[in-house]
């Protein structure tokens, strides 16, 4: 039962990035089963991400369809989600969909957060041609988790999942 519940929960797609599962995104913290009662623990990506409502509903309906009558979705706030939680498989799927995956997390340091005005941004590779000669064109995109880039080599514009 636990294996089945976990398989179902892991394979629920993200509504904004439907090629990505919850396991790919790295937001699934735990799945526990007691009889027909399933507790799924999730960590939201951004505080205001509206996709979390859709994900909760999708989890409940898919687990109910598989015979789990009583589904509880719990929020786990700490540790907060980081783009490092995206799996290698998730990164491949993002790139295949034309979205540059996040590079690596900024190392957390003690003390005040420095302004990025004085730091180099991440080295983002074009998902179309692989070139590293890319430039960021906007700080945000259609969702809170992405920004916009353009490739100077092949001229393709593309989205990139931000490093947080």
């Amino acid at each position, binding site marked *: 039962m636990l294996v089945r519940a976990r398989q179902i929960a892991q394979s629920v797609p993200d*509504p904004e990035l439907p090629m990505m599962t919850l396991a790919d995104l790295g937001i699934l913290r735990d799945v526990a089963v007691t009889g027909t009662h399933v*507790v799924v*623990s999730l960590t*939201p990506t*951004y*505080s*205001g*991400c*509206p*996709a*979390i*409502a*859709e994900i*909760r*509903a999708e989890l*409940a*309906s898919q687990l*109910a369809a598989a015979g789990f009558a009583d589904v*509880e*979705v*719990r*929020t*786990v*706030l*700490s*540790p*907060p*989600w*980081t783009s490092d939680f995206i799996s290698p498989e998730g990164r491949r799927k993002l790139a295949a969909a034309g979205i540059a995956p996040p590079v690596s997390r900024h190392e957390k340091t003690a003390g*005040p*957060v420095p*302004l*990025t*005005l*004085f730091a180099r941004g991440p080295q983002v590779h074009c998902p179309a041609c692989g070139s590293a000669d890319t430039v960021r*064109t*906007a*700080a*945000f*995109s*259609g*969702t*809170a988790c992405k920004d*916009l880039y353009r490739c100077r080599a092949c001229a393709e514009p593309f989205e990139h999942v*931000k490093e*947080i």
Partner: protein
Amino acid sequence: MGFDTAYEAISEETDSGHRWAFGTGFSDPLAGVDTSVPAGVDGGDLATYCLMLGDDALIMSHRLQQWLTRAPELEEETALANIALDLLGQARLLLTRAGTADGSNRTEDDYAFFRTEREFRNVRLAEVTDADFAGLVARLLVFSTWRLALLLRLQDSADPVLAAVAEAGVKEITYHRDYAAQWTIRLGDGTDYSRQRLEAGLAAVAPLVAELFVPSAVEERLTGVAAGPADLRPEFDVVIAQVLAEARLDWPAVAGLAGVSGQAGRDGVHTEAMGYLLAELQSVARAMPGATW
């Protein structure tokens, strides 16, 4: 795919009720989180503190949402919408935390839609209107620089819920501050006209800055839980000075905006702008109490 009506196409029957659009039907952002109040912490004070930080985010978010369809470019519209969404998410968590901390079990909607102006605890900086885009940039720079310094310290709060909200919020506000700082430099070090507009924006927000660092009685009582407002000032001054130096701008020398009999936003005493904002924010919920959407 054939649907009789557009409504049918976007709606869905679920076991938990009828959902008609993306993102609806989501009621408790703290579902499953341990919301017990730590030993030695006054639940009422903790709730009030959560309202202060939650109202800052809610009211600033609403002002940012008012920019949608009015931003100078599509990219900036997207940016402002995303910043507003991050702040709304922080507000939802904090207002929900308030209702669990004082045991009243009031929901985020009870707080957002059914309190009067005097019950809102946000700083006045969050509620004022922006004369133009440069005015918004100046206000967002001040707001996010201050809030980042605050959340950074709150990560060590004795309340684990506040600490967790702060830890996620730090990443979000870091990004907002960078966005505002980059526009400050672009406008300040841009044309004569853009520079004038930004100087006017800074002059408009400068009187509201002193209030950010004045500790309220609740914050003083919540030692180890709240971030002391006065402690945030040095970091705030350093960051603002760095950005203004890059933008070749000076911080305007203007007097702070006095409160009424010494009372300001944290005491529920607001500027004229607040009433109009709440009228817009609350009118639908008050016209149809109990409605869900």
